[in-house]
């Protein structure tokens, strides 16, 4: 059966995430990011950040909310039971700090078949309350046996 590609170009509504200090601390602990700038407001400000700052990979926490409806969309047609996270890229700009409100928009960039596998590529763009881009993500999911 050929792969359905109608969803290419589809964009989902923006998802909003409100960043909080305890979530940053919890995430920093879980990944072992030791710096005080992830835990102490004063240390972060002294290092030149607007406030307590998230580790770069915290972007997965605030952009996951935008990715979920894309991956689950029947029009995309991913079989979750055979899906693997194939590759991932992030490009970072403005750091994300306690109190930021991040909006992330997901778009389906590509759907193609290779070696009997379906490749589903999504892009997310996240911006903060000042309109500054915090991260751009490229998420590639691979579905076996399409």
């Amino acid at each position, binding site marked *: 059966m050929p792969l359905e590609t109608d969803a290419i170009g589809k964009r989902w509504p923006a998802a909003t995430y409100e960043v909080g200090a305890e*979530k940053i601390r*919890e*995430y920093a*602990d*879980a*990944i*072992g*990011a*030791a*710096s005080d*700038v*992830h835990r102490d407001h004063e240390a972060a400000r002294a*290092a030149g950040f607007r406030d307590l*700052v*998230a*580790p*770069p*990979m915290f972007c*997965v*926490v605030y952009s*996951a909310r935008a990715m979920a409806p894309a991956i689950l969309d029947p029009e995309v047609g991913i079989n979750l039971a055979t899906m*693997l*996270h*194939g*590759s*991932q*890229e*992030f*490009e*970072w700009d403005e*750091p994300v700090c306690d109190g930021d409100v991040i909006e992330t928009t997901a778009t389906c960039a590509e759907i193609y078949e290779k070696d009997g596998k379906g490749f589903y590529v999504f892009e997310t763009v996240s911006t903060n309350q000042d309109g500054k881009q915090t991260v751009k993500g*490229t998420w590639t999911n691979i579905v076996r046996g399409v």
Partner: protein
Amino acid sequence: MAGPKDLNEGDAVPELRVTPDKYLPHRYAGASGDFNPIHIDPEFAKAVGLPGNILHGLWMMAQVARGNAALADGDPRSLKRLSVQFRGMGFPEQELVVSGTVKEVSDGRVVIDTVAAQGDNQVIRNAQAELSAD
């Protein structure tokens, strides 16, 4: 201390070694919101054909991010880009080693080819990190 701007092409970057404990996937699930049972439930994982519960790929990617940002003393502004391919399953209670080699130094940026492995099992391959060298 020496930072990204002191690196030259071909330099090996210091290894990051970390051993996730048995319950790390549970803490990461809570921190990240990813409660897929293949990461936190060994019985479920076995029922779907895995040897046991496996590490979250994005936790392993965070270790690659951390290993490379360590070159800039962990400054979260230093890491500008990271791309990875997930090519193996990672397991709790096994040491993960992040290593890398400087590929290119130019225009205030340092590009590092980097991998993460548990023993011979390369769980993240063809990864590339770009650090600001300003």
